């Protein structure tokens, strides 16, 4: 019975979204984009380069889904009043929710925006026009208001500081982008516990984003390093940038390894504490201070349970 009711709900005819979107006045009418260019020649001049021009070029879309009026609503009153913000939908007067709904009218169909309604950006009132500029885009793809990194840095200054550290992913150098690892429109829950998903874009649909590039760390291995699989790469690495080599959380390896491998507590996969180093490992001997000198396959091994080969 419940399923029938649910099915019925979804099969109802699609209604216009209400979420704060101002409904056009009944008397208002669509006038077509040609009417707009009379006054807004500066916008119209290069509009054929805009991805939204497709709707005009197709010539088949309904008036409410094409050209200027596709976003700004019917322009009849606006033309009659010879302009004015009060007679047309202007994004500068919209609340963030109205902006979101206006754009999702068409763009909710994209798989990449499937989680936009619950994304941390939406919850923080950061919506489409905070990052995208429809008429003054800095990038031809995705109509970003600035180059991607500068756009993200506008709010994420702490992350910017990390990308300027000596050891970092090459975002400022232009070879890595924030969206390689994150989906700013929201993502599915990461396969991990802890605080938030950070809008991580999983690799291969459900794995750590790091593995998109670092495919050699993916395995599957016969001997997995459990902390890598259970807590993720961040157990040892700071993904944006670090003052330490190889994006490590500590400047030398042994302090990081020993924080887990101290043999106490009920930690680890066997609940007996993560085993400590053996008595043969004299930590005052420099050889044993560089754990990965011997444990070279620390991300996972096919032949040795202690990752020696």
């Amino acid at each position, binding site marked *: 019975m419940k399923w029938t009711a649910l099915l019925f709900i979804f099969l109802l005819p699609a209604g216009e979204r209400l979420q704060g979107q101002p409904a056009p006045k009944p008397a208002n009418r669509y006038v077509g984009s040609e009417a707009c260019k009379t006054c807004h020649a500066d916008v119209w001049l290069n509009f*054929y380069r805009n991805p939204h021009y497709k709707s005009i070029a197709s010539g088949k879309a309904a008036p409410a889904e094409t050209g200027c009026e596709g976003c700004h609503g019917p322009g009849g009153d606006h033309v009659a009043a010879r302009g004015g913000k009060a007679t047309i939908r202007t994004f500068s007067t919209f609340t963030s929710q109205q902006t979101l709904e206006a754009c999702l009218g068409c763009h909710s169909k994209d798989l990449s925006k*499937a989680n936009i309604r619950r994304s941390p950006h939406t919850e923080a009132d950061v919506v489409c026009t905070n990052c995208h500029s429809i008429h003054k885009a800095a990038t031809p793809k995705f109509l970003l208001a600035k180059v991607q990194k500068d756009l993200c840095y506008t709010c994420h200054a702490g992350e910017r500081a990390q990308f300027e550290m000596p050891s970092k992913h090459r975002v400022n150098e232009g070879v890595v982008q924030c969206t390689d690892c994150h989906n700013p429109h929201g993502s599915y829950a990461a396969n991990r516990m802890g605080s938030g998903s950070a809008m991580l874009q999983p690799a291969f649909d459900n794995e750590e984003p790091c593995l998109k590039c670092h495919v050699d760390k993916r395995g599957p291995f016969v001997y997995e390093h459990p902390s890598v699989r259970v807590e993720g790469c961040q157990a040892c690495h700071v993904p944006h940038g670090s003052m330490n080599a190889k994006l490590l959380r500590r400047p030398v390896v042994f302090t990081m390894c020993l924080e887990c491998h101290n043999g106490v507590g009920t930690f680890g996969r066997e609940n007996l504490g993560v085993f400590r180093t053996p008595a043969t490992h004299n930590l005052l001997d420099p050889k044993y201070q560089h754990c990965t000198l011997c444990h070279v396959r620390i991300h996972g091994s*096919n032949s040795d349970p202690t990752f020696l080969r």
Partner: protein
Amino acid sequence: MRRPAILALFLFPALAWAPSMRAQDTVAPTTGETTLSARGENTGNYNVVQQWEFGYRFASVGGDDGKYRSDVNYGDGIRLLSSYLTVNSRDGHGNWFDEITLSTQGLGNDPYESANFRIQKNRWYRYDLLWRSNNYFNPGLTVADGEHLENTTYRLQDHDLTLFPQSWFRVRAGYSRTTQDGPALTTEQEFDPQGDVFPIFRDTREQYNEYRLAADIVLKSFRLSVLHRWEYFKDDTTDNLTATELGSPIDPSLLSGFSRAQPYRGRTQGWLVNLYAERQWIAANGRFTYAGGRGDFIQNESAVGVDRFGNPQNVQFLVTGNGDRPVISGDLNVTLFPASRLSVTNNTSVSNTRMIGSNSYEEFNNTTFTAQTLNFQFLGLLLITNSTDVRYRFSKKLDAFAGFRYSDRRIRSTEDEAAPASPFQGLSAEQSNRLDAGVAGVSWLPIQDLRVHLETEIGRNDHPFAPISDGNYNIIRTRTQYRKKNYTLGGGYVENYNNNSIAITAFSSHSRTYTGNASWNIKSGLSLDTSYSKLHLDTIGGVAFFTGSPIGGPISLINQESLYISNIHAGNLSLHFPVTAHADLYLGYNITKDTGDGRSSLAAQTTPVGQLLYNVQTFPLTYQSPMLRLSVKLTSKLRYNLGYQYYGYHEEFGLLSVNQSYRAHTGYTSLLWSF
């Protein structure tokens, strides 16, 4: 009008003294200058906009060249520093295409090269290509004493073709390829577990190929996406010894021959199904994914030499086996809009990862069979998460949300190591971790253009997996932004406190990040950007280890606390201004300084263990990079550019007796050209 600005400054105290914002790029390619024509050039039914930057880059490095290459890596040579091209049909009805966009960076042997290309024909197809190359160099001095040196090249390419992109039925096909190859050094410990470690030359050859095929169907307010992917990974890396390696002076061991082949073949088949539906008061989104990964391998390793007791050794290891990792996950998100001001979102996710590996391990010494085992490993992770968030808009200026997150994870493992034909005696373990977390936040516009966001999260985990895992944690995030047409002021504070303690040891981590930034476009061509961040981290963890030689003795078990203090100040300043009507100057300065716990040298401690731990508690260093760029307009389609950037890396004291300070002078000269 002045009051909001003053208020904003009051809210962001960091700005009052911070040298003021925008990300500092590398000196080249030239950014912020252009010869692009807004109108472009019309050719037939197409409009063309393009710009190319050719130039010469130079670098001169003093100090640790390896560390410079690890951090920066720019070298000398002629480059196509950047390019930009768009071709658009003017009526949206081109013959074969309606749009081409191309942008490149660093082509011609910069360490960071990329090309981004799109071609599309409205309604029919869209093709995207992203190609990237990254030269990776890392001497790993502090990590592996310089014996894990890598000098490899990552190349990544992603091809995506969408057919009927504007239709209710879309077909997507894709291909991605990632390769890593190049020389590297690694290490190998042979003959016995306490023996010496020898450097080995590695020829890295890894290749990953992925093929994707997907379809999207949009029907009324439903959208169904189905994706199938095939992935293949190939690793043909080999390790060899090029010359006899001697052991340490006190150890007679030597390695006179070594070779290792370890071909690995991995393949994964994956599925993704997503169903999305929206109605006036509900939005629902369900996803199912499956990825069945498998890898087969053979490892053949042989080593000839002398062990630490002076005995000649000739060992060989043969390992064959495979690993499987099927991963299944499902998500259901439902957002309800019971009233125009209220939304309620619930997400439920289930993820099941199973890792199963087995191998046959054989060891020979001087042609004598010395060991044969069959090994089995299983690690299973089942994670169920559920979150509910309620959001209410009190007014246009104020909304608040609160939520509860629940995660339950079950970890199972089984392992067995046995001689052939002996019965299976697997050792199994199982545990559950449960995390409950509450979140709450508020977004507020106290005055026009000023946005304040506050958020907090408190979580409790009943059984953290590792000492460093989230145990009892509290997070506070605040962000404020005041945005006017030509200037932006921003500030933020994030605090993350995690306490995960038990009776014998404790792990506590406390991080605080303060940020402030300002950006001001004073007038055309004149702009100022500045930012300041302070990232403070204190951690304390319990460590246990042994000291003393098994031969010389005595052996002691040490239980100590390991401290780590990082206190990073990061500042950024960039100023762009016209010098004359035809010349623009860009000045930039970026500094990142970790003052650690305040020390600038290492003091003597009373015990060797105390000294060792004291030496690695903090890592003060300064990394700074001032730059200057002059761009001169020669004609409306030609600019001449000249730039200089300094990189200075200075460690206050070396870690484990390694100091990697360097200074580098880099620069370029180029022509920015449109034709």
